[in-house]
């Protein structure tokens, strides 16, 4: 059975890109959210196996959303997918319990490997 992925990214084109990349793999995009607030609401309905989380979004940013999500659901698996890839954000992502960090722009194999690796931790 496919693992359920919830994509949190305000960019519709990134949502489509991830849906396309993951179609035909062991993962399926079960839901897409455009903000951290929406992700927090949607998580209980979707129960995803993994959440990909952008950082820069309108309203609550992805690191704050990930922190709140992991506080409420310590078993949640969060993979940060962002162009804001530098020590400050990577350290913060690790500190709050994210299972990985993927730089944008990413390649197909890279994101699939990162999802697999995050789910195996």
């Amino acid at each position, binding site marked *: 059975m496919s693992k359920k992925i919830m994509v949190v990214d305000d960019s*519709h*084109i990134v949502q489509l890109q991830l849906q396309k990349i993951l179609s035909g793999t062991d993962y399926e995009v079960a839901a897409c959210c455009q903000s951290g607030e929406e992700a927090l609401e949607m998580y209980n309905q979707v129960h995803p196996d993994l959440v990909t989380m952008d950082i*820069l979004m309108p309203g609550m940013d992805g690191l704050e959303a990930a922190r709140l999500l992991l506080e409420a659901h310590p078993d949640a698996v969060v993979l940060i997918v962002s162009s804001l890839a*530098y020590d400050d954000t990577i350290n913060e992502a690790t500190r709050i319990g994210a299972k990985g960090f993927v730089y944008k722009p990413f390649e197909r194999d890279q994101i699939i490997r990162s999802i697999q690796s995050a789910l195996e931790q």
Partner: protein
Amino acid sequence: MNALTPKEIQDILDGVMQDVPNRIASIQLQKQDTFLSNNVNNLCTIHTTFEGGYHASLALCADACLLMRLTQHFMQEEIVTSQDIEDFAKEYLNIICGRIVAGLFRSAHISSRFHIPSFSLGRYIPDDVSSCCILNYTSNCNEGVQLIHQTFPLENSAQK
């Protein structure tokens, strides 16, 4: 906080401008002295501002044909809509800015963020060109790209 010279900032911008389209679509941009485009009536502009330890604005003007090619590669689709191109253009500047923020942090430990990019049709021409760093490029298909970077004279600006 350390400061960066205009040349150091320009080097960060130039590195990012050349790296990102290459990563997305293997498109190599050639640096030019002036803005050259074979389609000046079909330009788009994406704009954002930085905040935090770095106060600046960034506008990217690009030939719509180049943005369309990048969108096609990004989506792995031959047919893309104008909305796809607009969405991609904003994501493109988002990626560029993320890389710039990372570069500023690595070079001078400057922590900054940027606002969500906005998109408009047409070319952006700044009021005061003398205060801007302007980088011009062309693609292998002679599509023009111009990056207009303007630092704001505020405290804690990264530029010295």
